[in-house]
């Protein structure tokens, strides 16, 4: 089984790679090669920073967007987007202008605006999940499981059925989305200690 973590210059992938290797019990491929992504059995798209920057970073890798579409949409390989990697699954992102997403999950990535002005942005730290729809990748991460978030925008999904889990920060924040062979987490499983490692293990075993 080849697990490809896409490296497009968005932050450090060492920790993510180590977390996946620990759960896979085998090396994973950290790659910027579109052919490797198109051939992979599972694809992970991490992402930190701004939506538009991440989009541009992917576009700079000639053929990567096509390879991602081939692996995930055409071949139906299990896909996990993390943080901005999850946000890119949306139709569009509204951070510093409007930027197109992949259009895999209907909806837009909008600024987090807590109803209570005392609540801080970025939404940074450990927050509890509320599971909206049971999913194999969330197995063992029930209501109240704390996971690590750090973001100022979130995916406002058009279809509530695509939302797997939410968190509360002066309003509901989309914590995980999923459809068919795709899942995405706004939180960082690779930074969420035991709960995060569990999710990564679930993803590696998942047969959508």
């Amino acid at each position, binding site marked *: 089984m080849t697990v490809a973590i896409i490296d497009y210059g968005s*932050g450090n992938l060492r920790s993510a790679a180590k977390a996946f290797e620990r759960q896979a019990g085998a090396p994973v491929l950290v790659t910027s090669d579109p052919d490797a992504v198109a051939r992979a059995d599972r694809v992970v798209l991490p992402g*930190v920073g701004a939506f538009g920057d991440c989009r541009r970073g992917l576009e700079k890798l000639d053929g990567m967007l096509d390879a991602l579409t081939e692996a995930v949409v055409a071949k139906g390989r299990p896909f996990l987007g993390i943080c901005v990697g999850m946000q890119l699954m949306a139709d569009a992102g509204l951070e510093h202008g409007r930027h197109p997403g992949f259009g895999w999950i209907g909806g837009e990535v909008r600024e987090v605006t807590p109803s209570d002005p005392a609540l801080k942005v970025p939404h940074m*730290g*450990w927050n509890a999940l509320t599971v909206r729809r049971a999913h194999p990748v969330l197995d063992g991460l029930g209501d109240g499981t704390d996971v690590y978030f750090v973001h100022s925008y979130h995916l406002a999904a058009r279809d509530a059925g695509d939302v797997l889990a939410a968190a509360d920060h002066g309003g509901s924040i989309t914590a995980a989305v999923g459809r068919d062979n795709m899942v995405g987490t706004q939180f960082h499983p690779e*930074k969420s200690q035991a709960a995060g490692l569990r999710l990564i293990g679930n993803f590696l075993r998942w047969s959508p």
Partner: protein
Amino acid sequence: MLKIRIIPCLDVHAGRVVKGVRFADLVDAGDPVEQAKIYDAAGADELCFLDITASHENRETIYDVVRGTAEQCFMPLTVGGGVRTVEDIRKLLLAGADKVSINTAAVHRPEFVAEASERFGAQCIVVAIDAKATAPGTWEIFTHGGRKATGIDAVAWAERMVALGAGEILMTSMDRDGTKAGFDNALNRTVADRIRTPLIASGGVGTLDHLVDGVREGHASAVLAASIFHFGEYRVSEAKAHMAAAGIPVRP
């Protein structure tokens, strides 16, 4: 609901953990990667390394420490100390840090914070501020480990740093650091109430009640402590149980 974070901080000198009192009198306290693993297992919410290595030739040691930690601890890691250029930040992030904290370099050139935030994202840019009270309700920024006054008002500075793109403010009271007399809650509250981003309270923790006070009175989103955890006075789990009993939301 977002939890209040407990962040153990390790002062690292030439690849070893040390902890000084009032930024002097260093005492060796072990291997940073081993310490990090202990805190990871103990349920610390984040980890912070402050690199206090002065000599240039030993500066590279921090990257090894960060690499070793990131490979074994799957929790957020902030690294500060001597971060002066975009290249310094890039190297720390590539080694496995999730956030970097900028202190003196921001005072020398505030635009550095904006450049760093645009390049890497506000989520990984922490601005560390070392402040001392100069009059009731007034605090001034000091650099060079608290030795050099700048004449800059700490509260206005924190607001400016957030406007430039800091994702978080790490506020250290130089009056309290190492004293075990508790955080400067008036300072922290004044700043926290004026900024949109989280504030991490630092400097002065001696008892578990101080952590509670840092949140209740100081309005901090996170509390940072070094010596009470290093020298085994309290475990992270005890700190969490104490805060939970006081009604503060913490991760179990």
